[in-house]
């Protein structure tokens, strides 16, 4: 990390998901010096784990390819992965930031040839697949990982496997002695783009995500559609691997709920509508989707997507907050219990699979920010002059869909540039 040069005219972007990547590129393409840091071994963030975007049903990797190409040719941009902020002090135009980098155990010599992966035996849960799949102890997080550089799982260090990986590498790219490193930089402005994590569905006890195999979260369901994912692109029941053609979607699972997240996570309605199209894609007319909802928030011009799904006879909408889920011991079917509030009918509906449209929770807990910023009750950073030269981008600022997150990130790039240009102006 010694080659990183930063000044109070440098912008630090924290988080390499789509918001952070956007903020970093947009600022760099204005000619500003930018350091982009990401906690994980690869850029990409949550969107890289999605099969398709709503409402266009296009692929996130398409946009990522463009963004990667923009980054590869931009010399104003410095990218540090496996890196987090451990301390921040100072003020707008002059921050001291301490960065901590975990060892990847693989250096820039790596060509991503894959020999180390072939050499090792040890397997671990794949973070990329929410633990639904195993990966090797020497791994490339996913096809489009950037940097295209392997990672050695720290749990493998000290084992024979680690040595095997090292021995398999012809390029002297594996360094098992790599240590955690720390560096302190001066930057002028900070864009905070640490994004979101799916709300822990196990906490919604009545839905039994922790007890019933065939109750999965929306993000897990998304992974099923990836041809390289845990089910090879098939929509199946975790309990028995049989195709799941009768699927229930529970909206606001953990959102708009005082016991969990009190905010509306915005994306879940559209995500569910999108996921019903996956069923049609896989099973044509041979499927049934039941959406249990409070309000369908297909806001603004994308309401037409909702209208399109409403016209699909295989998709039913039930206005109801599901009270609980039980499991049919024999079939392992989840049975949803509740009251349909349109006419007050009680129901106990069995389905092959139940998908919980889980909410968005800010990745950084309220009390874990390294510097004082104004944070609202839901844990999102509020725009406030008190934040000085620190600006939230994307889902650090609110529950946002991709389009709005990118919009927010682009705006945050300008706010950071305002600080930098002010500094440049006064320093002449």
């Amino acid at each position, binding site marked *: 990390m010694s080659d990183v040069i930063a000044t109070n005219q440098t912008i630090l972007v924290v988080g390499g998901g789509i918001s952070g990547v956007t903020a970093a590129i947009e600022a760099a393409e204005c000619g500003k010096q930018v350091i982009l840091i990401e906690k994980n071994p690869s850029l990409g963030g949550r969107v890289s784990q999605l099969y398709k975007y709503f409402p266009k049903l296009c692929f996130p990797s398409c946009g990522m390819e463009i963004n990667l190409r923009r980054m590869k040719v931009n010399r104003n941009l410095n990218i540090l992965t496996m890196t987090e902020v451990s301390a921040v002090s100072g003020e707008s135009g002059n921050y001291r930031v301490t960065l901590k980098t975990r060892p990847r155990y693989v250096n820039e010599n790596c060509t991503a040839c894959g020999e180390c992966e072939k050499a090792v035996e040890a397997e671990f849960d794949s973070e990329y697949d929410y633990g639904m799949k195993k990966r090797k102890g020497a791994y490339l997080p996913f096809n489009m990982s950037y940097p295209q550089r392997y990672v050695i799982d720290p749990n493998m260090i000290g084992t024979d496997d680690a040595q095997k990986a090292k021995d398999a590498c012809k*390029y002297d790219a594996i360094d098992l002695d790599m240590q955690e490193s720390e560096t302190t930089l001066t930057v002028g402005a900070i864009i905070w783009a640490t994004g979101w994590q799916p709300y822990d569905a196990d906490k919604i006890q009545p839905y039994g995500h922790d007890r019933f195999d065939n109750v999965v979260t929306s993000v897990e369901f998304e992974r099923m559609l990836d041809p390289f994912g845990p089910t090879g692109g098939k929509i199946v029941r975790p309990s028995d691997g049989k195709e799941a053609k009768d699927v229930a979607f529970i909206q606001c699972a953990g959102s708009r709920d005082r016991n969990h997240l009190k905010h509306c996570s915005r994306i879940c309605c559209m995500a569910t509508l999108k996921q019903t199209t996956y069923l049609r894609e896989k099973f044509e007319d041979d499927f049934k989707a039941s959406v249990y909802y409070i309000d369908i928030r297909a806001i603004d011009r994308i309401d037409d997507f909702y209208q399109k799904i409403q016209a699909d006879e295989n998709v039913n909408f039930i206005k109801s907050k599901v009270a609980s889920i039980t499991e049919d011991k024999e079939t392992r079917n989840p049975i949803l219990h509740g009251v349909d509030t349109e006419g007050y009918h009680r129901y106990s509906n069995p389905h092959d699979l139940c998908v919980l449209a889980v909410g968005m929770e800010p990745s950084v807990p309220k009390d874990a920010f390294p510097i004082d910023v104004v944070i609202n009750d839901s844990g999102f950073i509020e725009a406030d002059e008190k934040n000085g030269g620190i600006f939230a981008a994307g889902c650090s600022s609110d529950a946002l869909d991709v389009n709005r997150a990118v919009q927010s990130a682009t705006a945050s790039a300008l706010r950071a540039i305002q600080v930098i240009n002010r500094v440049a102006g006064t320093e002449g």
Partner: protein
Amino acid sequence: VSDEIKVGAYICKGCGLGERLDCGQLATIAEREGKAKLVREHEFLCNAEGVAMIQNDIDNEGVNKVMIAACSRRSKTEAFSFENVAISRANLREGVIWVRPDTDEAKETTQEMAADYVRMGCAEIKYMNVPHSSGEGTTGSNSLLVAGGGIVGMTAAIEAAAAGYPVTLVEKSGQLGGGAAFEYKRVPEHMPYAELEDNGVAEMVAKIEADSKITVHLNSTITRTSGAPGRFSADISTESGSTSTENFGAIIMASGARNYDANQLPELGYGKTPDVVDQAGLEKLAMEANGGPIKRPSDGKEVENVVFIQCAGQRSTKEGHLPYCSGHCCLTSIKQAMYFKDQNPKIDTNIIYSDLRTPGAGGEDFYRSGQQKGITFTKGSVSEVTVGANGPEVKFNDLILAQEVNEKADLVVLATGQIPNSGVDIDAPAPQAGAPEVTLESILNLDYRQGKDLPHLKNGFNDSHFICFPYETRRTGIYSAGPVRRPMDMAQAKEDATGAALKAIQALENAKLGRAAHPRSGDLSFPSFRKEGCTQCKRCTVECPFGAIDEDQAGYPQFNESRCRRCGTCMGACPVRVISFENYSVETIGQQLKAVDIPDEFSEKPRILVLACENDAYPALDMAAQNGNHYSQFARVVPVRCLGSINTIWITDALNSGYDGIILMGCQKGENYQCHFVKGSEIAHIRMSKVDDTLQSLSLEADRVATYEVAITDIKRAPQLINDMAETVERVGMSPFKF
């Protein structure tokens, strides 16, 4: 001496290339056939030492063209980026050894594949030059033009000025503030999202007046815009008829939206009684009341109960209604219900909705605040508003209680939608004779050949078509923001204005350096044409997806480099092949496919040319390789900037020189197109439909040429398409045109 071409060819032996291939033979080919002046093999070309070796040859051996035979151009891009030299990449790893089995049987054809890619790399580099900025934008303007002085335009101006850029704000009316100036209060923008805030207009106007970087033109419109990013010229005309002309680097279009005409909703009582108002009407009443009791218009009675009808004339497919949701109306109705509740909690306020849309943290908190203030929310479907003896009556089906309800109210508020002020729909078909004339005022009055305003996306909004690129404009350097782009609430509109300001600033900074904007960011190449060959057929000016090409008085194309996005659609369109880029031309591709070794008809070694979009199909093939998906040893893949850049001469030449099959792989076309150059894939499909004539004249089978839509995720399908073509060739036989 400096003009002398000196090609350095570098052959990497890492990643198994050395083991799988005879790199010595490849070096010989580069030297003898590729005419490289300097050829080096290296065990591990992308490491520091390999890179330093190449740099040294550039610095000390006069190498000015570098051909790297190693991995895909998508890999190790940063290591292999040398300044001031042309670079081509022969993809031996993802393109050859990873897509072929490591068997003795496959060895010969794998080597032939690699040899061809080396030939192709050498052929390409010969015709590639280092692109230099045109210099067009070197005197680029730093100023921004903002069309529209509402909240969005004011925000864009304030934010851009705060970054140091001068702004000229043009507002049609006599005052700044737009619709927001007529709103009594605004939805809170800060926690706890419970109490209404001042509309904020006065504060913003004061800021603008105090900012020496912002110039305001009231009662003014933009009557002509010409030029390109960095050198736009705009006529700003006042109502009284005087015009001034100024230069700008970039433009933000913040022309906002107008209210839907509620007179189109007689079934909801509008126009039948003054006690049915739209949201703008209620703002007026609230302004008049100014914190006191709101009175109903008919007789001045203080309102004791008010019903809000959501989605009035919206989210509806009925003729004359708006098909979309206007995005802000749920929040606005809650705000307006609070006007009553805050003044007197005893007033009944009922919001009848189908889906209450208040997303996010602030939205949901605000909704909850409304509930706490005693606003009633009813999920219902309104059928009619009639005028009773004492005021309007709302008939609706209460969807929760499943019963018909007739509710009497002092006042009914219709949450009607918004219609974007997006100017002229340049893609609309020309009106037929006798049809009623629709006169829409243009916002920008662009003198572009392709029309006066930004293209519309849907329902008149000129949003970007892309999820991950909301500011991907089809007119470089011009960014729309706010409700003209997409329906949105005020808080989001301010965010949008700030984002658009950033993009505008970026566009003028790019123009100064001659750099392309997204998606080929930083590209310095630009199209030029050989005038003497041009037949003035206008295909390039018509087909440019970005309206970058005008015509001069003689009818020749006039390229505006800083509007250009470097897709090459013009190059693909040109029937006489006079358009080219310094590093991408009819020759750089044409010579590659001619360089491929075509074995004779009886060799059983066909050749399949694959022209693949560099953004989707090519990465899909790379990832196929990465995952060990093999494809035919007879394929030769050439990445192209966009399928739209494919000139049919390449197809004709390939068929004439004995290729047995040709595949074009582009992005999804049609309504949900994925092509970032808008119509490239579609245009290619149309052009290719005409290749049938060529095939016929050569007596070749039609299925030798295929055009596909391939997504970046088609990691298994893309190789399969190649294999399918190999099968087709096997079925129909080898081409007889081998020389």
